[in-house]
């Protein structure tokens, strides 16, 4: 079940997605973190962020909207207070990072360089919730490439660029960051959506719009992973609405070397390990030796 993504070794291809698994601790009562392929921690910014005012989430059909607004403890507190807990486990820890400028991205990356217990960086160029932020970087190939270059210059860690689905042509962004040195791409982040309270005629989210996640978006994630995997030669990590081992396997067949489990953790705290067990069972049943043998095997 082991996979290797640009030097990042994982026991299995299943990671938990940023923002949906806290800093690991929140789910450690439910899940033996040692069993996970990797944990992508909640997005880290240079300074601690309060996040958006509530309400921050709303259920939708087959999914949910969130506008957490990247509430996080900041990179320094993460290193001092959250990382020691994670270091106790034998699991790949990927720091998801976020900045409001090229400079900030670079600074966060630099602070995480050579920090014991951080095994890779994932750049969130895609968060749609913060006005001045994510969206502009991730929806423009040049800006996305520039962020990638700046982060690469500050770190010796493998760098994963996490792409936004809110674009016309996601493959062109993937190609741009690959050229800029990204070691892998992960996709998709949430799709920007909105929900309205008919009684008050106000948006359900204080932030007005939020990011749509969950099984509702799985067809879109799968399509984008397939499109991107055909264009780039770096590994692709599939994300979006994965609830079961079958969903994860579909992503891998579409071209993902690994997957991330997001919203499913909320519905079932044990989802990530159940997916790992399910994948193992599938490989066994189908007499597939290496998980990598199924990657990108879609017959079209």
């Amino acid at each position: 079940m082991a996979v290797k993504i640009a030097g990042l070794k994982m026991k299995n291809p299943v990671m938990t997605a940023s923002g949906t698994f806290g800093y690991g601790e929140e789910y450690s009562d439910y899940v033996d973190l040692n069993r996970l392929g990797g944990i992508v921690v909640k997005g880290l910014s240079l300074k601690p962020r309060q996040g958006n005012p509530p309400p921050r989430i709303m259920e939708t059909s087959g999914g949910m909207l969130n506008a957490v607004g990247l509430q996080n403890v900041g990179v320094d507190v993460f290193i001092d207070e959250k990382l020691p807990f994670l270091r106790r486990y034998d699991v790949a820890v990927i720091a998801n990072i976020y900045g409001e400028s090229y400079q900030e991205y670079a600074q966060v990356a630099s602070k995480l360089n050579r920090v014991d217990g951080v095994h890779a960086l994932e750049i969130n160029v895609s968060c749609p919730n913060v006005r001045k932020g994510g969206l502009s970087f991730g929806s423009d190939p040049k800006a996305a490439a520039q962020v990638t270059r700046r982060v690469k210059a500050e770190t010796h860690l493998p760098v994963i660029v996490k792409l936004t689905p809110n674009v016309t042509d996601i493959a062109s962004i993937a190609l741009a960051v690959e050229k800029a040195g990204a070691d892998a791409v992960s996709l998709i982040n949430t799709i920007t959506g909105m929900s309205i309270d008919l009684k008050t005629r106000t948006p359900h989210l204080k932030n007005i719009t939020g990011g749509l996640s969950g099984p509702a978006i799985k067809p879109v994630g799968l399509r984008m992973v397939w499109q991107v995997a055909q264009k780039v030669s770096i590994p692709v990590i599939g994300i979006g609405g994965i609830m079961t081992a079958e969903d994860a396997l579909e992503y891998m067949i579409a071209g993902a070397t690994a997957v991330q489990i997001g919203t499913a953790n909320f519905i079932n705290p044990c989802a990530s390990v159940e997916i790992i067990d399910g994948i193992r069972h599938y490989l066994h049943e189908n007499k597939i030796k290496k998980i990598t043998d199924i990657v990108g095997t879609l017959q079209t």
Partner: protein
Amino acid sequence: MPKDIYIGEVSRNEEIRKNFFLMKVTLPYGFVEPMPGQFVMIRIAGLNDPFLSRPISIYSFVRGRMNCTIELLFRVVGKGTRILAGLIKGSLVEVNGPLGKGHFATPTTGNIIFIAGGIGIAPLSLLAQNLCRKVCRSSDSMTFYLGAQSADTLIGFNRVHQYCGRVIACTDDGSAGMKTLVTKAFQKDLRIYDPADTSIYACGPRPMIRALSGILDPEYFCQVSLEEKMACGVGACVGCAVAVKDDYGQKTYKRVCADGPVFELKDIVWE
């Protein structure tokens, strides 16, 4: 990893008042005894519609020989509660809980006051029961202010009367008890409660809690249970944020699920 998601079986689900349901769920023996104020995240086993689990307070808990039984008291307000209301005996539900790290603190004072508005009765009833049993106080020291819109929706009176010497019922329309807001009824009695010797526990709609914060001096020890939309219920998604004062009096967002749902009234920032 002591925690797990439990499959529960609905053993009873009755509409005790129009739109108010009392559901009994049988759970495995291993279900941990809840502390008053704690809640469960519940969903219908195997279905993705509604998608998210619903947070519901634990109204009562009994550990039997083979399993545990919890009671949930809920009001139908939207899609999820409507579907929960439709569950029949034998239906399976997925239950995560008990959840919530912030729960009601055991009082050390002479006067113990409960203020419940509507469905807010649920966690306070469990608290009153526990205090009555475990702390073994004279039930005379416990006063329960119970508010509802009308006699129809005044729920739990008899139950809390078993635990509390005094139960003061209030309805908006006067169809049962006093015709007044529950906070007003409490306010009238306020001068008899010495801040140094009184613990107050409240749960109810946001306007009620807000009214209470206008009435009560910060000297009073007052804990309230809050509600906010939840996705994970365990502190991971930071979706259920509520603005409270941190140790330096600065506004910060805490998680209702993991830092609460019980907070001190004086810490709440009214945005």
